[in-house]
């Protein structure tokens, strides 16, 4: 009789624990462009998140991390469909996404209405954190945060007086170019031309020729994806516009360019100055550990890019929020808004009142040397 009684109590206690264990889940929706040309971002984003999940062994502080990936294909239509799908099927506490500005903006109002946190690690558009959304958090530097140091330092530190803007014809490209222009002109500089190019442009010789004919150009701020930037730099060098080709103009770039760009562009990359947020050669332990783990998982010849790093960081932040006691969307939002100097591979995170990361101390300038190595500039 006593045995049965004890067994019963044991069974009840086990069931209770079991039920509780089932409740201790953090549900994370991830919207990434996995198909189409946007998969450039999505594939790398997924790599970063998968690596983080591996390292966390799928759980934090006793809470299981349940992740559902959806392919939002960089388009507002797909993004809204998949965000609704993930809200229906997973009922997530937080959604990470998207990469492309259009898609990120499209899902923001939906997540806002559903009171689910949106953690963005890839979009540049100012509108994401300036539309009054209370559930949006972004760790990616926006157009203004990149444009200000680039524009101002081009004038003050580099001594540039004339610039030609080169940017891809997307929301992100336009916002970045605007950011540079605003601050360069405010400092006293002059924009000689704004030249945009679609993502399907392959040959940049005509553009380089046009720039060569514009007279003295001091700086060429460029905002585009690495594939096109390599060809652009090569064309500019060929036209003897940039330093790497014997010219005098300096190419300036945003954090979009990954490590390894210089090797691909070759001699044309000499003299390229850009801001870097994720630097795989940085000595900080968290960065080195990340690079090591990344190579162990994805191959020794790979070097992680900032897209890998940003995505990886989103999971670190979620984990940190959970460690600080977050168990659902509201508490995640609360912990996020109180983050001060939480260390991740791309720097230290403190979210401002509009959800944008405010600490840009990790962002620094580097210049590509003749041997294609990076030299830090103390700007």
């Amino acid at each position, binding site marked *: 009789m006593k045995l049965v009684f004890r067994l019963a109590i044991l069974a009840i206690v086990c069931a209770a624990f079991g039920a509780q264990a089932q409740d201790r889940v953090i549900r994370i929706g991830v919207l990434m462009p*996995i*198909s189409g040309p946007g998969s450039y971002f999505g594939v790398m984003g997924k790599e970063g998140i998968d690596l983080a999940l591996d390292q966390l062994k799928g759980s934090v502080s006793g809470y299981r991390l349940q992740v559902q*990936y*959806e*392919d939002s294909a960089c*388009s*507002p*239509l797909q993004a*809204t*469909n*998949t965000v*609704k*799908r993930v*809200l*229906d*099927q997973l009922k997530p506490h937080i959604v990470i996404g998207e990469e492309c500005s*259009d898609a990120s*903006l*499209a899902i923001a*109002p*939906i997540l806002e209405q559903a009171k689910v946190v949106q953690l963005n690690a890839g979009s540049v558009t100012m*509108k994401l954190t300036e*539309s009054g959304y209370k559930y949006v958090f972004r760790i990616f530097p926006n157009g203004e945060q990149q444009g200000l140091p680039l524009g101002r330092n081009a004038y003050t530190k580099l001594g540039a007086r004339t610039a030609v803007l080169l940017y891809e*014809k*997307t*929301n992100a490209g*336009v916002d970045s170019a605007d950011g540079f222009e605003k601050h360069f002109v405010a400092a006293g500089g002059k924009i000689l031309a704004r030249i945009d190019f679609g993502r399907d442009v392959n040959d940049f010789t005509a553009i380089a020729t046009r720039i060569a004919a514009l007279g003295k150009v001091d700086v060429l701020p460029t905002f585009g994806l690495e594939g096109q930037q390599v060809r652009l730099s090569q064309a500019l060098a060929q036209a003897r516009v940039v330093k790497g080709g014997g010219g005098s103009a300096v190419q300036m770039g945003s954090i979009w360019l990954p490590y390894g760009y210089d090797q691909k562009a070759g001699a044309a990359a000499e003299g390229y100055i850009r801001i870097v947020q994720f630097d795989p050669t940085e000595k900080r332990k968290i960065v080195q550990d990340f690079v090591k783990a990344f190579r162990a998982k994805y191959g020794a010849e790979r070097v992680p890019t900032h897209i890998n790093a940003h995505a990886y960081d989103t999971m670190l932040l979620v984990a940190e929020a959970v460690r600080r006691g977050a168990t659902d969307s509201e508490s995640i939002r609360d912990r996020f808004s109180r983050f001060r100097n939480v260390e991740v591979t791309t720097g230290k995170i403190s979210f401002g009142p509009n959800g944008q990361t405010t600490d840009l101390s990790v962002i620094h300038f580097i210049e590509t040397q003749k041997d294609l190595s990076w030299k830090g500039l103390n700007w």
Partner: protein
Amino acid sequence: MSARIISFLIIIIVVAALPWLLTTPYWRGILVLCAMNVLLALSLNLVIGYTGQLNLGQSAFFGIGAYVSTILVKTYGWNFWLASLAAVGAAGLLGLALAAFAVRLRGHYLAIASLGFAVITYQVLINWENVTQGVRGIYGILPPVGSTSALFYLVAGIAVLVYVLLDNLVRSPIGDTLRAIREDEISAASLGINGAIWKAFAFGLGAAIAGLAGCFYPGFVGTLVPDAFNIVESFTMMAMVIVGGMGTMIGPVIGAVVLTFLPELLRGFGELRLMIYGLALMLVVLFMPGGIVQAWMALKARIS
């Protein structure tokens, strides 16, 4: 009651019941998308299936409908319904412009011309930034009715109306005229059929219907970017018409339903999704040329 009226009533009942069967916002959203695709497929089928004109540029009219209605509402404060009317008119006019090419061109020439039309429209949407905002996009667009199921009933209701309209049209002497043009334009001319006028009619009407579908698109997504109307969309529409069964009335409907739901159901396959899609397209064209409708007829014939 005739078979037609019975099947019509069945369709009405099914359509009315759908939001009750699929209750989550996600699936209801897919239903709205499906209804829009039905409209698009019907519009294209009129031009390609019944009039025999190779039109690869239907996405242009879809885009014009979306942009004109949205700009009129957002920038000029028009009422949604008036704006949609204007948008449909604009799309129809553009369709007439394309028809001007159709009068002089045939076959693949017309196909590429229509493609060119679509590319030009797309590029105008991207570059005319003062009016369309270009790649920056237009945000915060509200649908004309509050809930998703209401939106579905609205669009599906319109689709049913358009279906009935077109069904009657193709059964009428006008339909015979269009089919005559499709089969043999020169012989048709010898019968006194003015190919130019009827082509204009088909293109204009087809464009107007596509424009009508376009009016509901921005409110559904909430965001409007030019990229939604690149030429790949034309191919998707064409695939719906062909997979369903070109030149029949129910074919495009079936094609739209299948090709709206199939990608969603394939989402579990991740990276393979689009490969399966391409393969399916190839196989249907190779082995079921008349589309699903023909396969169904063949099956029925076998059984009976």
